């Protein structure tokens, strides 16, 4: 890690800061992460986010409003800088979409640009709602626990970008990227915090894998 944040030792609880930018429900994310043994805090400013081992960017809502909310809190430049310097960042659902270069939801809006690719609507403006199984890239320990498991999806835009950034894909009838990654920045299109046992196991593997990488 290059940001002056000490690498955790095995006996020390890992610290996670959840980016609080007013979009959606963070309570479940906070609760899930705490129950997995992490030290968790919500923070809405760079100062509050600085000392955590990993940042989580959650979100429910529309892409343009979310980017606007990040911008109003001075977080766009901060997150771009942190991601490009190798700070582990995990985006969940809308949070994953924000990590990409852009989305076409309600017109074109630039994203954080931390993972190459864009978000486009499903065909016939459809939705992907419910529990879908995912197929993971073979041999990738970070996501291996999720292979063949079902997770809770709830979205209407999906990732369009190079295949090598896609660690996992959801199955029919809405095949789409389920987990994307570029270096230490990872996005999960589904809600691991709402995916019961499978979500908790995968979340734990992914966070520990990113922090200790």
């Amino acid at each position, binding site marked *: 890690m290059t940001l002056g944040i000490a690498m955790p030792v095995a006996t020390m609880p890992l610290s996670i800061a959840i980016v609080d930018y007013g979009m959606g429900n963070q309570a*479940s994310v906070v609760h899930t992460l705490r129950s997995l043994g992490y030290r968790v805090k919500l923070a809405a400013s760079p100062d509050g986010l600085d000392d955590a081992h990993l940042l989580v960017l959650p979100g429910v809502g529309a892409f343009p409003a979310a980017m606007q909310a990040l911008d109003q809190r001075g977080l766009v430049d901060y997150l771009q800088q942190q991601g490009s310097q190798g700070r582990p960042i995990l985006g969940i659902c*809308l949070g994953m979409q924000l990590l990409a270069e852009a989305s076409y939801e309600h017109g074109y809006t630039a994203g954080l640009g931390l993972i190459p690719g864009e978000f486009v609507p499903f065909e016939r403006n459809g939705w992907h709602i419910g529990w*879908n199984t995912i197929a993971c890239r073979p041999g990738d320990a970070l996501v291996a626990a999720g292979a063949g498991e079902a997770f809770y999806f709830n*979205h*209407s835009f999906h990732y369009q970008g190079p295949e090598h950034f896609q660690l996992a894909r959801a199955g029919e009838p809405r095949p789409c990227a389920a987990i994307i990654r570029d270096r230490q920045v990872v996005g999960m299109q589904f809600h691991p915090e*709402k995916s019961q*046992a499978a979500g*908790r196991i995968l979340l734990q593997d992914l966070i520990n894998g990113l922090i200790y990488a």
Partner: protein
Amino acid sequence: MLKKRLIGVVTVKDGWAVQSFGYHRYLPLGKPQWLVENLDRWGADEILVQCIDRSQSKSGPDFDLLETLAGLGLGTPLIYSGGIASAEDGVKVVQAGADRIAVDSLLHDAPEVLSELGSKLGVQALVAAVPMRMRKKTPCWYEYRTRRDLPLSALGKVLGHGLASELLVIDCQNEGNAFAFDARLLDALPDWNMPLLVFGGISDVAQMQDLLARPCVAAVGVGNFLSYRELAIQQFKKTLASSALRPALYAADFPH
């Protein structure tokens, strides 16, 4: 493969979880959070909490209940309905802990608010909850506040614009009665390009199997009948193993 869902439904009136019978008789069950906690522990695919008196009394969403539920740290997706009268209400409900919202009265009173909600939350977060019943062999959309039966064409005018992602069909006449859901309600529905969630009088495995076998049905909702025995979700899922449902979860599946 996208799984079909078994939704646990908790009906709340005057702050208490109730058994509801045909939208007119109610028996208290206890605190809603107890039932919700059970459904979460048993591995329901989704939980619907419907506060049935909030719109009529114009008391707005039950934020105290949502706060209590948020404190449970549910690992199961939560749909909330009741008292949502504006886009601001809907956004606050999601911020308070719901993953999605279901609206009923709003479809009658201000469908344009749905459009506003869609632009703020995304249409995938919106479920249209529609009480229906048969009247002289014709399915009707029931307006429970005025007790009027409306033609399905009136519903089509609202839903035809893609304002919600899923349609919750509630058999309001047979709700609360065992093995009573009237599948004719589904036969007559036009294709609005919306997956259906069905609820009301669904108590039996064979009946669930029949409903889940329909391509348009994405989920069955079960309310009262989950309260009669422990681990009811697992029992239903075990028996319905071939119905494209997610398999049942057991305590051993959870990391400690």
